[in-house]
Each structure stands twice: as structure tokens, then as C-alpha cells.
């Protein structure tokens, strides 16, 4: 709170209460009367009708010579002098010039205290403090238009009879600030009519006709494809009936014939016999267990024993994957790959490698166990030595 803003005390009679009043009157006078009367008069005095009239209206060929060299030289010299001094001042105040001693003396100021006649006269020299030349300016620049100082009023020479906008017209031109439909931290509201107005031409719950067009087109394409397929099938059937036996039957026969022919010989007979034996022993043929059995047999014959763990690992490794897929799909993919330059990734990356055999268990059967550590660990009962130790240590007994 500024005390100067407070009204003067009411009860005490001030010596300068009159001055207060007078100054107030003066302020009022300045605010109300002075500017209007003075400016209007001065403007009226300045206004000249001839300023409206273009000079070239009467004669297009008025000569307006460029300034001659003498005029230019004169003006240059005059301004150069002014600007040199201005620049000098600027550079000095910025601290960019060399601080010399003479200059310091000029700016210093000697002040004397005490009566001139008496002996106790104190002389003081006031010197401007040395400033860091690299210190940034302390002035704070604000983005504001600098005020015009002491400028005379100029008459306006245009007819600014443009209509003043009414409130309604201004409202028409008003563009409301954008409000996001997703993020609105300040909670601005959008009126319902504006919301509806902002939407596109489609009415709510109306689906674009393009969707139905698309589904129709898809249906048509599907229908055509089906027709073509059935047509092709019919043709194939027709061809098959012409040649005699049906194609599939014939192919199947050939495959059936080719299979057993390969595995003929003594080996085959041996295996068959073994199988028969196994079947007779266990009653039913179990795919998973017979390999394990065979392994056990082999180990027994060699005079060693195999742990269950090793056997199950070997069984898993030798297991063939189930073939439930159509192999034609793969062959098709390979063909495409060979034809086109672009690779056709329709199967896993390491399909050639037998992934299941990468982490194969070591073939322990070939190497006989040398030390006791390799053998299965047998758990034993606690010995008495342990008990005595604990007793001695803690002095506790059961």
C-alpha cells in the first residue's frame, strides 16, 4: 500500500491541504478540458486543404530532381558527426571501450562538506563504480510498444467513415476456440448444436453404403470362384470316366504296392520276428514303450544297466513327429520359392534341422561308467558319528 495514495487525515488541519486541493483541481482540469481544446485547435491549424490535392493532377511533367552531390555531402557530414558521438557514448556505456584514466577523472565528482571558512572541511570524491564489462544488461525487455514521447498531434487525412461493427456482427465473425473431443483438462463444454454441427453429413447410426457394396462384391467373387471350381471338378470327373479307372484309386494302388517292396530281405524278417515276439509278450503293441524295452534288452545283453532318465531321453529323441498336415502345402511353397526371387516364408526357420535332436542326451550307453559318481545315488540312513558331533557341540540330547 502506498501512503501517498491514502487520503489526507481529516481531523488535523494541514498546512498544505490547500495545495492538495489545487493539485486535484489541476488534474481534473487536465483530464477533462485541456487535451481536447488544445489538440483540436492545433489540428485545425495544421490541416491544409492543399495537402489533399495531388500535385501532378495539373501537370504530369513536374520535375522533381534527385538531391545533388553537394546536398548529399552536407547531409552526410552532419549526420556522421551526430552518429559518431552517439556511437562513442554507446560503446563507452557498454564497457567495450578501453577504460583510461582521463576518462575516469572526468566522470568523478568532488563534493565538499562543512562550512567553507572553518578548518573541518571534508572533501569527497565520488567516482563511478567500475562495472564488469561482460555483465549482462539489467534492463528487462518487455514486449510492449514504446510510448510516443512529446509528439505533436497530426491531422488524419483519410475519411475513416467506415461503419462500426455491431455486437451481433462481431459475434458472427467469432471463431470459437477449438476443444478436443479426447483431451479437455480445463473442462470446456461444447454446446449440443455445435457438436452436431461439427459432424459430417452422415446422420447418426447410418452406415455408409460402401460397406454393402464391398460385401456384395465379395459375395459375387466367392460365388464365381465356387462355380469355377465345380466346373473344373466336373471336367476332371468327365476326363476320368473317359480314361476308365478313377484317378485317385489308381494312385493309391500304386503307392500301396511300392511301400513294402523296399523293405524286403533278412533285416525286415528279423524285425518282424522281434515285433511278433514283443507283441506276444505284452499282448498289445505300444509304440512308445517298445523302443525303451529294446534299449533295456540291449543294455542287459551288454552287461550294464541304464537309468530311466537316459532311456526316456533316447526315446524322446528317436520319436518321429506326427504327420497330420497336408504335405502338398509344403511342396507348393517350395515351388514358388524356386520360381520367384522373393522367398516364401511359410514354415519355421530351422525346419531342415531336426530341432528336437539339437539338445540330444549324451549317448551314455557307449561309455562305461568309470567312477562311483556316475552311478545312481543311493540314500542311506544317518550314522552315529553325526549324532555324537551334534551332542558335543550343543550339549543337547534327545
Amino acid at each position, binding site marked *: 500500500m502506498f501512503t501517498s495514495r491514502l487520503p489526507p487525515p481529516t481531523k488535523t488541519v494541514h498546512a498544505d491541504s490547500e495545495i492538495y486541493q489545487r493539485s486535484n483541481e489541476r488534474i481534473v482540469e487536465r483530464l477533462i478540458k485541456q487535451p481536447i481544446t488544445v489538440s483540436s485547435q492545433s489540428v485545425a491549424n495544421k490541416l491544409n486543404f492543399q495537402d489533399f490535392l495531388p500535385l501532378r*493532377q495539373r501537370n504530369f511533367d513536374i520535375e522533381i530532381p534527385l538531391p545533388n552531390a553537394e546536398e548529399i555531402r552536407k547531409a552526410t557530414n552532419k549526420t556522421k558527426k551526430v552518429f559518431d558521438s552517439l556511437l562513442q557514448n*554507446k560503446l563507452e556505456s557498454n564497457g567495450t571501450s578501453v577504460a583510461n584514466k582521463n576518462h575516469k577523472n572526468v566522470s568523478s565528482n568532488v563534493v565538499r562538506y562543512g562550512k567553507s571558512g572553518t578548518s573541518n572541511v571534508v572533501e569527497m570524491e565520488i567516482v563511478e563504480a567500475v562495472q564488469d564489462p561482460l555483465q549482462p544488461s539489467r534492463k528487462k525487455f518487455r514486449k510492449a510498444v514504446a510510448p510516443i514521447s512529446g509528439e505533436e498531434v497530426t491531422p488524419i487525412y483519410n475519411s475513416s467513415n467506415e461503419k462500426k461493427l455491431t455486437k451481433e456482427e462481431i459475434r458472427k465473425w467469432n471463431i470459437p476456440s477449438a476443444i478436443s473431443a479426447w483431451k479437455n483438462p480445463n473442462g470446456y463444454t461444447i454446446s449440443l448444436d455445435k457438436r452436431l454441427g461439427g459432424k459430417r453429413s452422415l446422420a447418426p447410426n447410418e452406415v455408409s453404403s460402401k460397406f454393402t457394396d464391398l460385401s456384395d462384391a465379395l459375395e459375387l467373387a466367392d460365388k464365381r470362384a465356387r462355380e469355377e471350381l465345380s466346373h473344373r471338378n466336373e471336367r476332371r470327373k468327365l476326363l476320368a470316366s473317359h480314361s476308365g479307372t478313377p484317378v485317385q484309386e489308381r494312385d493309391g494302388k500304386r503307392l500301396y504296392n511300392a511301400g513294402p517292396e523296399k523293405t524286403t530281405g533278412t533285416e525286415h524278417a528279423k524285425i518282424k520276428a522281434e515285433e511278433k515276439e514283443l507283441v506276444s509278450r505284452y499282448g498289445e503293441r505300444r509304440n512308445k514303450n517298445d523302443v525303451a524295452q529294446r534299449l533295456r534288452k540291449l543294455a542287459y545283453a551288454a552287461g550294464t544297466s541304464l537309468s530311466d532318465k537316459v532311456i526316456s531321453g533316447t526315446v524322446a529323441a528317436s520319436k518321429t513327429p506326427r504327420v497330420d498336415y497336408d504335405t502338398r502345402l509344403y511342396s507348393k511353397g517350395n515351388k514358388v520359392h524356386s520360381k520367384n526371387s522373393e522367398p516364401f516364408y511359410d514354415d519355421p526357420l530351422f525346419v531342415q534341422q531336426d530341432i528336437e535332436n539339437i539338445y540330444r542326451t549324451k549317448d551314455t550307453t557307449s561309455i562305461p561308467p568309470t567312477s562311483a559318481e556316475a552311478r545312481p545315488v543311493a540314500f542311506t540312513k544317518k550314522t552315529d558319528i553325526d549324532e555324537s558331533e551334534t551332542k558335543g557341540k550343543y550339549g543337547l540330547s534327545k
Partner: protein
Amino acid sequence: MDNYGNYETPIPIQRINDYYSSLRWRNQFSYMERLPQHLKEKVDSQDPVLQRYRLQISEGNDTTSQDLAKVDSSSTKINATLEKTFGNSMEDSILGRHQQYISQRPEWHAPWKLKRVINGHLGWVRCVAVDPIDNEWFVTGSNDATIKIWDLAKGHLKLTLAGHAMTVRDIAISERHPYMFSASEDKLVKCWDLEKNTAIRDYHGHLSGVHSVDIHPTLDLIATAGRDSVVRLWDIRARVSVMTLIGHKSPINKVHCLPVDPQIVSCSTDATIRLWDIIAGKSRKVLTHHKKSVRDMSFHPREFSMVSASTDDIRSWRLPEGALLTNFNSEKSGIINSLSVNQDNVLCAGGDNGTLSFYDYKSGHKYQTLATKEIPGSLGSERGILCSTFDQTGLRLITGETDKSIKIWHQDDIATPETNPGLPWNPKLSSQRF
């Protein structure tokens, strides 16, 4: 069918001309044929009765025979009557002045046409300046924050200067130094060394974007002005703002330096032009004739006058004092972004809607308007001429446009006043504004 040829009797061109001129005269000035009632009474009261009667009779005769009268005779008659009635005061009347204006002929200029389109900038081409010494290259500054130097004859890109962070708004090339100055909206004015092709100095101090820069023709000063509505004068070497000229009330569009007083002229969006006295540090004269933002001004290379433009309003001024010289016939020309004058008294005004209008500088007669050629692929809204300049010879006009292109225009060589008379010299009374 036989008598078809009989209808086609050749009418002499002279008669057609006469007919149309009389028609035009009647449409425009027939109201001036008679004096207004109150003036006539005044005049009549001065004459003796007999003379009054004669005058009436003669006027009556004239009206009957004036249908096919020549323009000159009728106008001189009116001139005479007006002079007779008002004497010396006739020059002060609107009609009298208009009569004088219309009786003169504007100079003929050949029409302009497009010569070359140069693409290369990635944004609006905001400013263009021509090499002042050799007239061999020109510089453009753009919204893409780059300055590009082009070969004037071939139209090849010679150099791209990057350094500004925002739009380059104005470029000034010095005649006395190997320097080029550029003003940008990033509040910086840069000094480029044209021998090393690098920016060597920055002038810090403007509080907002800088819109215009110019070099003092005789002193080592540059004047800059911009959105903070002050003109700053900088010492080129010291990089210190030596003087700040305060007075404009809104952003300044253009600033120009002259060798003699007024040494600085600036035009602003507050619709004023200020002529500054830089020795006193304040404005000498404020020109308030324009109604809207004065977007550009240009200085005649051969005479000491300038021309300024605001919306629908182009005026030229005699310079040391800033007296109105010409009101150009520029109504309905829309927003005018750029002006340029050459030594042959051709004024080119580039509009914000992409029209180029050419005026005779002395009479203010608009003799040609043409729309810019649109660049294929540009939008309809990208028709706007942002800057223009004549080269040193005044034979080529270079414009920078909103469709990111630079266009070079030249005059038609084979055109004659007979083949290309241009737009008719038909100024209206209202176009003179006063």
C-alpha cells in the same frame, strides 16, 4: 441477296470515333454542361439583362447540336464558361481540376509478359533483391528460412545460404561493401560476407520479428524495423543499435534509407508513413492519407519521389517534404503486397490475389493488369505476389510468390501504341478521391 452488298457501305472510322467519344462525353460529363442552379443565378445576376438572354439562347442551341460534337470542343467550351464564371478560383473546384487532369495524356508503355518461372524454394518467397553493381545475380529470401542466390540471365541457382531459423523477410545488398544484410522473423538481422559466403555478424536487439532492413547510402549504418514497431539504426561494424526511432503504433512493414533528409522513411500497419529526422531522432512528418496498412513503398530511381500502397490505394509523394503527387487509379485492386518502380516510369503493383497491375508513374494511369501463371500442382489459394523488384536496367521484373516460385517478366518488344494501346485512359472523378 443481291442488295446485301448495298448495306455494307464502309463507315469512316473517324465517324465511329466521334460517335463513341460523344457518347462517352454525354455519359460522364453531360451533367457538367449546365451550371448548378445556385451558381447560375449568381453568374446571371452579375451580367446585364441582354447578355443573360443571349447566353441562354446560345446554350439552348448547343444542346440540340451537341450529339455529334467532338470532345475537345465541348470540353473547351465548358472550360471557358467555368473560367468565365469563376476566374482564377476555377483551379480549386473539383470539376476544374478533373478537367485539367483528363485533358492530359498518359505515357504509353509496352505490355509485360511472363518470361521465366524458377522453382527451388520450399516456402513462400518473401523478398527479392538484385545485385546493385553488375546486375548479374539476384537474391531471394523465403519462408523456408533460406536465402538463395540465382543467376539473373540463366536462372540457375548459384548458392543457398542457411543461417536463419525463421522466415527471411527482407534482404539488402550493399553497394559500398561486399556485404548483404538479411532480416528475419527470428528477431535477428544477419550480415553476410559475399566473398566468403558466410554470416559474419548478427544484430541482436529487436524484441520481435524483423520485417525490413536497409543500408544507408552514404554512412555505415543499417536501419531495421519490425513487429516491435520501432526503427533501429545499427552501426555496421560495432553491431550496436545506435538509435531507436519510436513513433509507429503497430508493426512496421518497410523501412528505407535516403542520402538526404528525410534519411529514414518507414511505413506501418497503423496506416501511416513516417519521414524521420535522424539528427533530432524523431519523425518530421506523418503521412496519414492511407486508410489501411501500408504494406510497401518504393522509390523512383530517377526522381526524388516515392510511392506507397495500401488496400485499393496507391499514392506517390514528392520527397523532401512528403507532398502528395499522384493518386493512382487503383480502386478495386485489392490488397497490394509489393510495389516497384523502374526508370521508365512504370510502376508494378503485385496484389495479394495474384494480379500484377502496371501503372504509368506520372499520370497514375493503370495500363495493364494480368494474373500470374499458376504453377501446376499449386493450390488456388496460392496466388499471391509477395515481393517484386526491377533489375538495374528496369527491363526485367522479378516477383516472388506464394506458390514458392520466382517469376521473371519482361516487356513485349514488338508492341506499339497502335497494336497494344492498353487499358483506356478513362479516369473517374471518384478515383481522384479529392
